[in-house]
């Protein structure tokens, strides 16, 4: 099979995501204005060179606010995916490789969990942990993403359990742990990488949705979702606020989505 290491989608996605990541990292340490400072400029001004995305009804610089908000959203999505991917991969690897009763039981549980839409499930977990706290948002979303990663990895590990190179490693006396980590895991990367990009995008969406609803990240922490609900109130006077925050979410997801598309095509599977 022909395997290209790079394609247009992957390249475009990497460039866009790289540029956004650089901007977001910059925003964590420096923003043009203090994101919360009132009267950083004239009130309700449209986009100008001094205020790239204009100002809101308090005279706050929207570009600085979007940078700060995107930082929060980005970090939450990253930690969420990290929790979901590590726990999910571990669970999927063990159940997929060893099988047995535990595997059966966990799969049934997994099936039942798919009946709950992910945001609904996250809302349930969040309402139990206590809404309005960013750490609880990370924990809630992290837990919610475990089953989907477990499902993907379980299938991959189960399909590679009896291939010849795994059998020979077993014959050579390699321990189960070594086989799982050294032999099988590297070969599931093709499945795992696209799953990571999808997971990241779902996390961005879920976090922004919950913060929009006012039960995710709440002030003083800024998040794109919360800012969009704030912007909705200023839709007539400052439409650029909503466009700026919404546009930032779209670009973030679009870039990672392109990367995912590229990775899937590179894997030779257009799903």
């Amino acid at each position: 099979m022909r395997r290209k290491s790079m394609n247009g989608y992957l390249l475009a996605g990497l460039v866009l995501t790289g540029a956004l990541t650089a901007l977001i990292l910059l925003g964590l340490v420096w923003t043009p204005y203090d994101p919360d400072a009132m009267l950083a400029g004239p009130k309700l001004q449209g986009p100008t060179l001094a205020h790239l995305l204009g100002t809101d009804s308090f005279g706050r610089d929207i570009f600085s606010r979007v940078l700060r908000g995107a930082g929060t959203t980005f970090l939450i999505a990253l930690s969420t995916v990290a929790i979901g991917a590590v726990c999910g991969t571990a669970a999927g690897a063990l159940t997929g490789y060893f099988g047995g009763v535990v595997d059966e039981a966990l799969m049934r549980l997994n099936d039942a969990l798919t009946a709950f839409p992910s945001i609904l499930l996250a809302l349930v977990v969040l309402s139990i942990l206590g809404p309005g706290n960013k750490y609880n948002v990370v924990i809630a979303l992290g837990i919610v993403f475990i089953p989907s990663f477990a499902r993907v990895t379980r299938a991959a590990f189960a399909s590679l359990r009896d291939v010849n190179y795994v059998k020979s490693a077993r014959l050579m006396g390699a321990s189960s742990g070594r086989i799982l980590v050294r032999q099988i895991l590297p070969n599931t990367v093709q499945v795992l990488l696209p799953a990571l990009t999808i997971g990241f995008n779902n996390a961005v969406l879920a976090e922004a949705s919950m913060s929009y609803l006012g039960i995710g990240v709440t002030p003083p922490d800024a998040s794109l979702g919360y800012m969009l609900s704030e912007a909705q109130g200023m839709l007539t006077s400052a439409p650029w606020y909503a466009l700026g925050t919404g546009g930032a979410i779209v670009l973030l997801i679009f870039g990672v989505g392109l990367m995912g598309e590229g990775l899937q095509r590179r894997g030779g599977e257009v799903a």
Partner: protein
Amino acid sequence: MLLVTMVIVSLLAFAAFDLISGSPAEIMLGTQATEERVAELEAELGLDRPFPVRYLSWLAGFFTGDLGTSYSYHQPVWELIAPKVGITLCLSLLSFLLIAAVSIPLGLWAARRSGGPLDAAGTVLNQLCMAVPPFFTGVLLSWVFSITLHVFVHGQFPDMGSDPGGALGYLFFAAVAIAIPRIAMTVRMLRSTIQAEMRRDYVRTAISRGNDRAGVLRRHVLRNALVPVVTFLAQTMAEIVAASIVVEQVFAIPGLGRLLVSSISNRDYPVVQAIVVILAFWVVLAGTAADLINQRIDPRLRLGGAS
């Protein structure tokens, strides 16, 4: 299978809220409550009974319409929920129809023209549509159609009973916001499924025997590609429900989603519990309907899936 899933789903929802630290009686009475008063109220709410008993009586309540009392509104949960169930189900059905009606023809069209710059542009457009969150589309739609064009009045949801046309018109915009990213995903899925099917031997044979391509696509490929597509569309129901929770907030639609969000903020657990289970049942029902439809399309599925 349907029953088993529903029992597990309801058990999960019930157990999750049962684990919450802090008794609901204490939340209802506030911090100054005396211990005797808390014990009294717990007995009144039936919270002093063992877990399985409470679960079974709660489940029985589902069929008799007795879902307990809301902590914050102090009225029966069912009275609170009943007028909103219809609105949310209407919204999700409308979104579903929209997704099916737009994505199936579009997916077929996209599958026939693959390769070339147009295909690449389509893929990029597809990714872009998937990247637009429903609540952002909702904000944009209400900006354009409510504030600028005055097609509907944001925040004034027409009564379903007296003005069904107006209510559906209002819901339509919300459905569009929900549908756009899902349409993109369905088109993408349909396109790759059909293309994989087109590469099968029987298609090549049919075409080499002189059948025209459009006819083969309609008569053979579509029928075989339909099973995964129906399954996919049923899974879409879960995403629609999730998106409608948020979009109801954007358009100020008085449905289950809005009640759910406010109940979570108020820690009104009986209401949250009931809504979660109703929404999950709705998704399970969609999945079962898809299984039944698939068994009609593909008789082979009737052997294993009969239960």
